């Protein structure tokens, strides 16, 4: 498991509007890469292009190349559905399926795809994924209760369990803690540290302390101005970005002297 992502010369458009301009980066396997930057600078948009989720919006399109190991995910014969099986995603707002129990939510990836699982396999996947998401102890006695009855932090960990249950190569996280309290945030940060043993993780965050705590490498995005496209300003080891940023803009942002 865990694959490398290589992005080169990626532009993202919404209709005629250029939202993200010319991003090239390498995302290392078995590590955590954080995207930071102000709101609207295109980091979430860029993240969604990594598993072709932006295609949900019919106006969005990309130019450029995204390689998952040696496969171009925008190649002509590539099925976006298959790409998303390899590259999972966790969203800002926890979104467990309201019609399903906790148990069914975890194996939703298989169930929704009409895969047949034996009872034993399903039990195994549910326990492994929930343990992996640090949620097993809290919910093991009520697996067949609705997933929407959990607290916000538990729901988000349930969503992480659901995403890891299909065993993707890469896990994209779009501000997974922004709606959570500090305790739940801590639980999820611990979880991210464990998950990076097996997955390539990309996380978008507004919280610079969080980026410093969880990530190995950090990428800083910024806008040149209103109406201008977002660009990748600088990327490097998290330590270096937060201590000796090369660019003035990065330094301004991380020291809070932004704008």
């Amino acid at each position, binding site marked *: 498991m865990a694959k490398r992502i290589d992005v080169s010369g990626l532009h993202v458009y919404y209709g005629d509007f250029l939202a993200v301009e010319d991003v090239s980066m390498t995302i290392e396997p078995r590590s955590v890469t954080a995207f930071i930057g102000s709101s609207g600078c295109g980091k979430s948009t860029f993240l969604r292009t990594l598993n072709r989720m932006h295609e949900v919006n019919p106006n969005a399109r990309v130019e450029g190349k995204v390689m998952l190991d040696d496969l171009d995910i925008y190649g002509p014969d590539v099925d976006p559905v298959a790409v998303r099986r390899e590259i*999972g995603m966790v969203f800002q707002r926890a979104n467990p399926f309201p019609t399903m129990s906790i148990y069914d939510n975890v194996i939703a990836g298989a169930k929704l*795809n009409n895969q047949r699982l034996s009872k034993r396999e399903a039990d195994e996947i549910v326990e492994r994924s929930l343990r992996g998401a640090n949620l097993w102890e809290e919910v093991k006695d009520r697996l067949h209760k609705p997933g929407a009855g959990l607290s916000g932090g538990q729901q988000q960990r349930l969503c992480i369990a659901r995403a890891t249950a299909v065993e993707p190569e890469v896990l994209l996280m779009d501000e997974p803690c922004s709606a959570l309290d500090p305790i739940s945030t801590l639980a999820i940060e611990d979880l991210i540290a464990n998950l990076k043993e097996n997955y390539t993780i990309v996380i978008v965050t507004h919280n610079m302390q969080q980026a410093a705590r969880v990530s190995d490498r950090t990428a800083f995005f910024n806008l040149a101005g209103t109406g201008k496209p977002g660009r990748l300003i600088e990327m490097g080891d998290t330590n270096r970005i937060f201590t000796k940023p090369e660019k003035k803009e990065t330094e301004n942002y991380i020291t809070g002297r932004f704008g």
Partner: protein
Amino acid sequence: MTTTTTTPSTGSSGDGPRLSSSSLLTGSLPRSFAPLLLAGTAVVVGGALFALGLFHLVSFAVLTAGVYLIAITVASRAVEGGRKAKDRLVTGVVYCCFGLAMAPLISLLWTVLVNGLKRFDGYFLTVSMNGVIPSMDAGGVYHAIVGTLVITGVAALISIPIGLLAAIYLVEYGKGRLKQAITFFVDVMTGIPSIVAGLFVVALWIMIFGPGNTSGLAGAISLSVLMIPVVVRSSEEMLRLVPNELREASYALGVPKWLTIVKVVLPTAIAGITTGIMLALARVIGETAPLILTAGIASTRINANPFEGQMMSLPVFIYQQVRAMGSSGDAGIYAEERAWAAALTLILIVMLLFFAARLISRLFAPKLGR
């Protein structure tokens, strides 16, 4: 509870030496004042009307409401001040409007129940009008129940798939001109008078089978012309209510779009969709005009085959019996009783449908309990 009926404050404190906080205090009427006042008004108005010999339910209700509104406003203004008085007045007006809206409904249900129960029994439900001559104290609606169930059932079978799939197209796939056109024509279809839907099917049938051909299927098709737009509209609204995040969550698990729709979107919206479908059914089950044109009036025959021959239905049965009310002697009375009992049957069928819909919604609704 500490309710005080103490001194009315002057609201805007004119005199100086008061504490500033006292302007925040106003008197208030005791909690039981409003209902007591209403009861008192009712007694006084009722008594006065009786004394004058003018008592009538409608005039009594209107007068009581009017006098109560004036009394509560004046009393409240004196004790509680202007803002509270307005509040009490508007609360009263809102209740009056609610009563006005409910009055015809309750009156209708009551009338149908009282008149319908005279003849509504097992016999009435299980026999047809076969061999019943007008002056006989006999006959029932069995043939009409069968017809209504078959015709609306077939109409539902036609309309639900078409309507639901159209709604899915509009919400999940449609874009551009085609979507706009469909939305526009669905809106137009919602406004089609039912008799026009009947005429449309008559014309269609004449084109295909020649003149004079009526059948339950023709009736069902005319009803689906009326039902489809309602199903499309209500299902569309319900599908739009499904949060996009659920669709994205499903896509992110590598689930194709069509499976996402079938397994995530539809189950999440199913409760609302069922309610919408039941409303649409309730709308068409009482249609009379298009059925007279297309399914004919099978006065006596029990016909459960929608593909052949005329078919009776409850609304048409009621229409037929009401037409016969003018007959001389007992025949007219029997016809009237049969009409009321058939109306009661129809209302009961609609209520059963709603009950079933509630049950289905309850079973499928998203579960939020802990």
